[in-house]
C-alpha cells in the first residue's frame, strides 16, 4: 500500500517534469506531424502500386502511419525515455543515490517511465493523430469496445517497451558507457517494431520472425487491435507474455548488476 503511493508520487512527478519541457514538446509534435506526412505520401504511393500489401487497404495503411507517429514518443519506440537518465546516472555514479534509497530500482524507473508515457500520449500523441485523421482517409472504428481494447494494448506495449529499455540501460553497469546500447535501441526500434514499414508487409519468412519478437508488441499489436484485424485477446496474450518475460529477466539482471556494484564498487 505504502509503496503504491510512493510510486504514484514518482509517476506524477515524472509527468510534471516532462510537462515543463514545453518547447521540446511543441518541437516533438511538429516533428511527428512532418514525419507522418512524409510516410503517408510514401505509403500512398506504395499501396497504389501494391494494393492490399500486408492485408491492409490504403486507409488502413494511412491509419497505421498516424498511429505510429502518435505512439512514437509514448512508447519510446526508438528510445528517449527513462533509459537515457538511468544510463547517465550509472555512468556518473549518481546511481549510488538511487541504491541507498528504500525503493526498488525497477519499480522506481517504471513509475518514472509511466509518468513520461502518459504525458507524451496526451502532449505529443494526440495532435499528430487528430491532424492525420482530419486530412487523410483513415480506417478508424466507431465501436467504443475497440477503442478500449486499443488502450489496453497500448498499456501492455508500454510494459514491453519498458522491459526492453530497462535491460538496455542495465548494460551500463558493465560497459559504463551506454551510448552503443542506445544506438542499438534506435535501430532495432525503427526496424523491428514496424515503425518504417508494417511487419505484415515484410517478405516471409522475415515478417514471421519479426512478428514473434517483443518489438511486435509495441506498434503492430495496438494498431491491429484498433483496426480490428487481430483478435484482441490473442494480441493481449502475446504482449503480456513478452512483458512478463522481459520484466522477470530485468529483475535477474538488476540483481546481478547491483551485486556487481555492491561487491566490486562503481
Amino acid at each position, binding site marked *: 500500500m505504502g509503496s503504491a503511493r*510512493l510510486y504514484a*508520487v*514518482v509517476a506524477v512527478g515524472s509527468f510534471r517534469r516532462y510537462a*515543463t519541457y514545453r518547447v521540446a514538446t511543441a518541437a516533438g509534435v511538429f516533428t511527428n506531424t512532418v514525419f507522418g506526412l512524409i510516410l503517408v505520401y510514401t505509403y500512398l504511393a506504395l499501396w497504389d502500386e501494391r494494393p492490399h500489401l500486408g492485408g491492409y487497404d490504403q486507409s488502413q495503411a494511412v491509419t497505421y502511419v498516424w498511429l505510429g507517429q502518435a505512439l512514437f514518443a509514448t512508447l519510446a519506440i526508438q528510445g528517449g525515455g527513462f533509459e537515457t537518465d538511468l544510463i547517465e546516472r550509472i555512468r556518473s*555514479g549518481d546511481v*549510488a543515490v538511487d541504491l541507498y534509497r528504500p525503493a526498488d530500482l525497477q519499480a522506481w524507473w517504471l513509475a518514472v517511465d509511466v509518468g513520461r508515457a502518459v504525458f507524451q500520449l496526451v502532449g505529443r500523441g494526440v495532435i499528430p493523430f487528430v491532424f492525420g485523421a482530419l486530412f487523410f482517409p483513415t480506417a478508424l472504428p466507431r465501436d467504443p469496445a475497440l477503442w478500449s481494447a486499443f488502450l489496453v494494448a497500448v498499456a501492455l506495449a508500454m510494459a514491453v517497451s519498458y522491459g526492453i529499455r530497462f535491460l538496455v540501460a542495465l548494460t551500463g553497469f558493465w560497459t559504463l558507457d551506454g551510448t552503443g546500447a542506445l544506438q542499438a535501441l534506435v535501430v532495432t526500434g525503427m526496424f523491428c517494431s514496424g515503425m518504417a514499414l508494417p511487419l505484415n508487409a515484410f517478405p516471409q519468412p522475415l515478417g514471421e520472425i519479426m512478428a514473434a519478437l517483443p518489438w511486435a508488441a509495441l506498434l503492430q499489436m495496438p494498431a491491429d487491435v484498433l483496426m480490428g484485424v487481430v483478435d484482441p485477446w490473442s494480441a493481449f496474450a502475446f504482449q503480456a507474455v513478452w512483458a512478463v518475460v522481459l520484466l522477470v529477466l530485468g529483475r535477474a539482471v538488476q540483481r546481478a548488476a547491483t551485486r556487481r*556494484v555492491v561487491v*566490486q*564498487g562503481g
Partner: protein
Amino acid sequence: MSESALIEVDRVEKVFDVRRRTGFLRRELRRVRAVDEISFRVARGEMVGYIGPNGAGKSTTIKMLTGILTPSGGRLRVAGFDPARERTRLAHRIGVVFGQRTTLWWDLPLIDSYRLMHRMYRIPDGRYRENLDRLVELLDLSALLEVPVRQLSLGQRMRGDIVAALLHDPEVLYLDEPTIGLDVVSKARVREFLRELNAERGTTVLLTTHDLQDIEQLCSRVMVIDHGRLVYDGALAGLHEAGESERTLVVDLEREFPPIEAGEAARVVKVEGPRQWLAFPASASAAPLVAHIAERYPLVDLSVREPDIEAVIAKMLYAPGGSGEGLPERQAVVPGAGNS
C-alpha cells in the same frame, strides 16, 4: 559500551580487483586495499570528522556504512543492522548527503522532492509537516520551496539536500563533503545548522571533508585515514601533538630589531620591519615566551596564531617516519572506487 555505540566498525576491509590494460589483449589484475582493517566506534550523539587525502578510503567507508558496498572482511554494525544485508531497513534510520550528488528532482520544485521523501520513508503526516516546517525555517528555504531545483544556487541546493536527508528523523547522518564549493556565508550557515542539529536532536554525525574548518568548528573527535588505514583517532587537540605542530607568536616591537633571542623556547621564522614571527611548540604555553620577550624588548602588540590543521595533517602523514610515503603515487591507488 556496545549499546551506546551506534556505529561499530571492527577490522573492516574492502579489497577491489582492478583490471588494467597492459597490452592489446593483456590485462593485469591488481588487488587494491581501499580500506585496510579499520576499527572504530561512534557513540550515539557524537559528531566525528573523517578526513584524509583523495583516494584514502573515506567514501568507500561511507558506502560500506550505508550498505551500498559490501565489506570484503570484518564486521560492521550501524544502529544494530548489518548495512549490506539489511540496506532497505537501515535506510529508514540513516540520512546521507553526498556533496557532489543530489537526491533532489532536478526539473521540479523543491517541495516535490520532499513529498517524495514523505512517501518513500513512510513518514507519518503530522511528523512530516512538523519536520518540514522546522527544517525549512532553520535552513531558510521557505521562499524557495516552489523553485525548480535546477534554478537553485549550489548553497541553496545543498541546504535542500540536507533537509531531504533529515525529514525522516534519521539517527545517523553521513555527510560527504557537505560544504564543497560553497561560499563563506553558505558554509557558515550549514555548519551552524549541523551544530544545532547535533546539540538539540542528538543526531549522530559522521562528516568527511577536505575543508578542515568544518572539522575545527564542528567536531571534537577526528579520525584520519590514509592508504586505507586509520592513522589517527582522537581529539582534535591531540592531532596537533601527533603532528608536532607549532603555533606562531606575532610581535610588534617599537622599532626594527635583529631577530629576537628566545633560546630553546622559540625560533624566529620571519622578520618584517618592527614585526617578527616566532614559532613555538603547540603544546607549550605562550605566557613564558611573551614574558621573556616583554622583559627584553619594547613590545607594542602581539597575537598568537593557531596552527593550520591542514599543515598539521600533512606533516603527520608525510613527515619522515610518518605513515605516508609521499603524495605522487597516491592518486593511482583507488581508481573509481574512492571517488565514484
